[in-house]
Each structure stands twice: as C-alpha cells, then as structure tokens.
C-alpha cells in the first residue's frame, strides 16, 4: 500500500489552519508530519497521519476541501548530506520532485523524508534500485 497524504485547501482567513488542526485533534488523530505550501492568497496543508481515511472524513465533514494523494516516504540517516543523497538519485534518474518535507523519528536516529515525484512508481523504483529504504505505509503510520 502506498503512503497516503492528505491535502487540505486553505483560504487565506484568520484561524483557518487552526480550525483544520482542531478537527484533527477532536477526531483524536495524531499528526505524523505536516507541511504547508502557500501563496499570499491561499495555501495547502499537507498531512501524514496514521489513519488517512478517518482524517479525510473528519475534514470533509467540517466542510474542508480535501484530497488524498500517494507519496513516497524514505528513511534517511539523520546526518549532513542525508537528504541531498536522495535527491541526487532522483535527479540522475531524471525524475522531477514536486515537493519534499522531512521529519525526524522519535529515536532521533533516522529522518523520514516525504517526497512527491511526478511519477510515484518511477520514483520508488529508482530509490529502491539505489538501495534507499523506501518505507511502507504501515511503517510510516506507526512511527
């Protein structure tokens, strides 16, 4: 199973990000990773959560505009050059990265990098071929 990411459209309105996160809190959903892409007029909140279906339903019920996408998650050694190495593999394989964000897992030994490439399957293949540990959905959700 692919790692699912929840994207939420946020209009530029005071408190709207809080409202989205409050929905998650009330639904008892723990956020594993979060990133925000924004322009001056609107933004997109991206979330990795253990139970994407539940999160999606809770947000949609509160009238948020939500979309679920596949992303790639990889484990990277938490040291200088860790992320650069991953991006080099993808660049060499001529795969475009749309966006990337990272978080450090609890033990602090490993960073988890979330990637969205123009083709998820090609991205995964290239990374696996280079020996990068691509994490399964279960692994990511249970971090």
């Amino acid at each position, binding site marked *: 199973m692919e790692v699912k990411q929840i994207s939420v459209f*946020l*209009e530029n309105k005071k408190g709207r990000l809080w409202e989205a996160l409050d929905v998650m809190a009330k639904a008892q959903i723990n956020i594993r990773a979060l990133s925000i892409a924004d322009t001056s*007029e*609107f*933004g*997109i909140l991206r979330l990795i959560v253990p139970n994407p279906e539940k999160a999606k339903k809770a947000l949609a019920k509160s*009238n948020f505009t939500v979309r679920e996408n596949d992303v790639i998650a990889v484990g990277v050694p938490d040291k200088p050059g860790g992320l650069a190495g991953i991006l080099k593999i993808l660049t060499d394989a001529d795969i475009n990265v*749309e966006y990337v964000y990272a978080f450090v897992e609890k033990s602090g030994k490993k960073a988890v990098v979330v990637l969205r490439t123009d083709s998820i399957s090609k991205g995964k293949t290239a990374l696996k071929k280079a020996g990068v540990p691509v994490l399964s959905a279960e692994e990511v959700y249970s971090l």
Partner: protein
Amino acid sequence: MFWQKEIETIGRKALEELQLKRLKQTVQRAYKNIPFYSDKFSKLNIKPKDINSLKDIKKLPFTTRENLRENYPFGLLAVEREQVVRLHTSSGTTGKPKAIFFTKKDINQAAELIARCLIMTGIKKDDVLQNMMTYGLFTGALIMHYGAEKVGVLVIPAGPGHTKRQLALMQDFKTTTLHLTPSYALYLADVMSNEGLDPKRDFFLRRAYLGAEPYSEETRKKIEKFFSIDVFNSYGLSEMNGPGVAFECMEKNGMHLWEDNFIIEIINPETGKEVAEGEKGELVLTTLCREAMPILRYRTRDITMIIPGKCKCGRTHRRISRIIGRTDDMFIVRGVNIFPQQIEQVLMGVKGVAQNYQIILESYDQMTVRVEISRDLFDGRIEHLMNLQNEITEKLRSEILVKPKVELLEPGTLPVSEGKATRVIDKRTL
C-alpha cells in the same frame, strides 16, 4: 401554441393603433385621478390632449422609484379604494417600500399575460409547476400562480427554501416545471449533487422559468445542462404587475414584451434620450391596461436592448435581451463602468469555479473578486490553483478592462441565498 393568438401575432400597424388608443386613455385617467400626475403635467405645461401619436410619449414625465416611495401608501391610486382587491409591495432596501395595487381586472390581466408566457414555452395542462418564489408581498410567486392556474397546470405553491422538502415534492408529484431565481437553481443543483441525486434519473423536469435576478447566458447553459431541461428567461417587476411582462419563447432568443399592455422605450439613463434600436439602455415602461395604478414612463433601472428583427415563433411583440444589469448595480472602478453580470459571465466560463462569487470594492481603483473553487478541481497541487487564479484574473481583465485581485475560496464559504443574492459588497465610503 398560443394563448391569445390574435393579439400575440397582431400586425405592427394594428398594434400601434391599439397602443395609441390605450395610451390616450391611460394618460387621461392618470391626469384626472392622480394629483401627482396632474401636478407634473401642469409643471411641464402639457394636457392629455397633447398626446396624438406614440411619439408624443416623450412629452410625458418620467416616473421614478422615488416617486412611488414619496406617494406611499395611497398616492398613486387611480380608482376608489373599494375597487382595489390586492396590495403588493416592492421592498426597498432603504426607506419606504413601494405600494402596488390591483383591481380584480388587473389581477386577471396579469394572469392572462402569464398564461401567454407559459403556453409560449410549451406547457400543457398535465404539467406540474413547482413555484419556488416567495409568496406574500412580493409579486413573483402569486402572479405566476394565478397565471398557471388559468392555463390549468397543477401548481405546487412551495415557496422558496426548505430544499429537502422541495426535492421530495418534486419527486412525489412528478414536477415538470420550476419557477425560481437563478441563484436558487444553482443551489438546488448543488444540493442534488451532494445528495447523490441525478436530475435525469430521479426527477421528471422539463423546463424552468428563471427570473427576479439578472443572470448570464453561461449560467443558463450551466443550469440547462445540469438538469437536462430548457431554461426560459422571465422578466417582470412589481411596479409593472410582477412576472409576465416579458418572457422567452421556444426560440430562447430574447423575451417578448407584451406591447399591447406596455409601451417600451429604451433610453440613455444619463440623458433620458431614446437610444437607437439595438443599443443598450435603460428600459422605460408605460402601462396601457392597468386600472388601479397606471404608471407613465417608469424608469425600471434595468439595462437591456431591443433585439431587432422578427421572431420565428410568429409573435409580433418585440423582444428585449436578457437584463444586462441594473443602473443601480453598476459600479465604477478606475473610471470603468462595470456590471456584476459581466463578472459572472466570465466566471461561469472558467472550469473549476463553483457558482458562488462575491465582488468586494475596497477603493476606487481596486476590486477583489472572491471565487469558490469546485471541490472536484482540488487535486492538492498548488500550481493548479495558481494557474486557475491567473486564468480568472486574465479573463476578467480582458472583459472589464480592470485587473482585479482574485481570491480563491473554499467551496461553501460564501453565503448562499435562497432569495436574491448579494454579489457586490461596497466598502467604499462616500
């Protein structure tokens, strides 16, 4: 099909003779029975006998909305109070309302005009009309109701709102025809989609009459496509009976205005002078058959134009275009005259935009257009949203010649109206 074939297809010359005869009577009655008009006539130094041709109508004074308010409640009544059987008021957002009176004959006449309109759209006795306009002081629902009963269709006096109940009525009684505002039609479409209802599979709809708010051709197409129906444009105003003043035939190319009941003038709202045929201007109407409240040269504030040429349907009464705007709705940004309908037309032509929008005027050189994105469009990619924002900005700039700021909103953010929608929020202080 015709309701009153002879009068609907009357030759132009005979029509004009009839108009002149009725105009003279109307002027005479207004002068004799309404002090407001006799005063105006004396000020202009004219007498009813000065009206000898249709062109002489230009000698008559205009009647404005303010005149109706000033003469509230009984000032413009031309008959004894006992002869009046119905009062409607036209709401003013500011100040006093306008009182509109009907005698028994006036109600019958208004209903006759509606009957002409409905038959013109192919309605039959076995049709079911669900009337979703507001019943009460507003003329929209009641006048339509009386006309539809005259035709003999089954009328469901549902009124607006209670959308789930509306849907149930439509299903249970196999409603074929709707009468509603364009914004409510769009809202209904939204609710149907959210409930997983398919207009074609789950309903029996054939047509809808849309009126009371100006709307664009794009919106008509959107509504026709969603419901798989014919949408007919309806024009009316309480001061002139309510709905049924002008209506579209099956050709759906402009609304036949019943010229045996009204004299049409299209004027330049600033100079008051008549514009050339086919040019845009303010519609001015004179009633020809009204007993209780004859009104001379009423400034409707609606912007339209005469559609030149004959209509294929055979009716000789001239057609006006859909209402392009209201002289009141028009606003000015950077010295450019803009109507909300121009903005709506652009937005409805952009994929990924939901039906609701709002125009915010912050200063005299900056406007913001707030648009709801459609839920289906959102795929989580910010580039797509930015492209959409740019596309809307550019299309608006080329239509209105002013570059607006465009804000994308979450669907369902803007207030949904079940009556008339407020599209323009003017924050500028005068």
